[in-house]
């Protein structure tokens, strides 16, 4: 009895755990009786099961279980706002405001502490900056709009050309198919007409022969003196 080991390959664990239906279990047990390979495999599965029961859990070595937890925030002092750095920054800011210091760069950036600029001057600067920004934005938008329009026009043309080409090809194919069908039908019709004519001709010939034979038959008694 040959064995391809497939049955045990599929059901060896279920057989070991006793969860196989009776019919399958009987088949597996029959295989075990006849196939040494399957018998060894099943024995190995039993060894795995025994191995698991023989394993004795070992104690976990000491380790820092909270080592990887997020570290708590550093403990802050009683008066954290009174650090020397903050105090120095505050004093510097107060000095700048009191002395009405102005700082300006070549790029037009101007920082004024303590109201060094008048209201009108500020308004003028803001208006100029807004006007400049508006002009720059308008130019930018116009340029982009123009570019976009050109791109879109080109894309539309290409799309239309592609569509036209595609449509033309489809029409040509359809017309070709139609013409082929029409020619085919015409050829079949011609064949049918020719065949019918041939049949009619044959019929006529037969009729003529029959009439000739009949006339000969009718004429024969007269010649015999009737």
């Amino acid at each position: 009895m040959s064995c391809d080991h497939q049955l045990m390959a599929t059901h060896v664990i279920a057989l070991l755990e006793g969860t196989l239906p009776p019919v399958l279990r009987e088949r597996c047990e029959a295989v075990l009786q006849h196939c040494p390979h399957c018998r060894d495999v099943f024995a190995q599965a039993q060894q795995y099961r025994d191995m698991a029961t023989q394993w004795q859990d070992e104690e976990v070595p000491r380790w820092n279980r909270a080592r990887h937890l997020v570290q708590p925030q550093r403990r802050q002092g009683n008066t954290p706002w009174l650090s020397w750095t903050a105090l120095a920054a505050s004093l510097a800011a107060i000095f700048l405001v009191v002395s009405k210091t102005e700082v300006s760069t070549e790029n037009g950036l101007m920082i004024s502490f303590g109201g060094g600029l008048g209201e009108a001057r500020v308004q003028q600067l803001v208006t100029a900056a807004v006007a400049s920004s508006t002009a720059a934005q308008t130019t930018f938008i116009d340029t982009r709009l123009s570019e976009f329009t050109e791109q879109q026009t080109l894309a539309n043309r290409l799309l239309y050309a592609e569509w036209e080409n595609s449509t033309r090809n489809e029409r040509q194919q359809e017309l070709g198919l139609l013409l082929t069908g029409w020619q085919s039908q015409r050829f079949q019709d011609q064949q049918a007409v020719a065949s019918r004519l041939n049949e009619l001709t044959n019929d006529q010939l037969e009729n003529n022969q029959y009439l000739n034979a009949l006339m000969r038959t009718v004429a024969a008694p007269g010649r015999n003196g009737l």
Partner: protein
Amino acid sequence: MFTTPSDEMLIERALDGSQRAWVKLVERHERLVFNYCLRQMRNRSDATDLMQDVFLAVYRHLPSYRGEGVFAAWLMRIAVNKTMDLLRTRQRSPQVETDDEAETAMLDWHAPDEHGPAFVYEQNSNNTQIHALLQILPVEQRLVVELKFFQHFTFEQIGVQTGVSVNTVKSRLYASLQKMKDQLEANHVL
């Protein structure tokens, strides 16, 4: 009366920042994970490292634990993933190990224990043999044997844990049985 808090309760507290709850949760499951790591790795030191990696990953992914299923199964899924990642990395870049280092690793595997010498000897004897047998198998097959026989998962659960189909799980298990059988036959011949 005092009742033992469930895993879910401990997780909730740990997510709220309770270090004590996290430590309690770890203590509850570390024995399972450590012994799993012992069977998967070559020595005790690697097993300890892997266990710590597993719990670090668990801690990082704890907010994504939705409470569906058993926490231990979720934990083992992470453990399996970490094991596969680690062992595959080592396969890609195998470390050269001298005979002395290998011997040291095996000796290191015999752990000191607070129990008596007889207990330690018997425990180490069984566990060492089991460990040596499991080390014969490739990683994927060893994981399937572990999950089926030591963790008692179903084939479907093992498929989910390892990310392969049930048929693949069965094939790997059967291949491991054949490999072990061949190995024992070879030992018998020698």
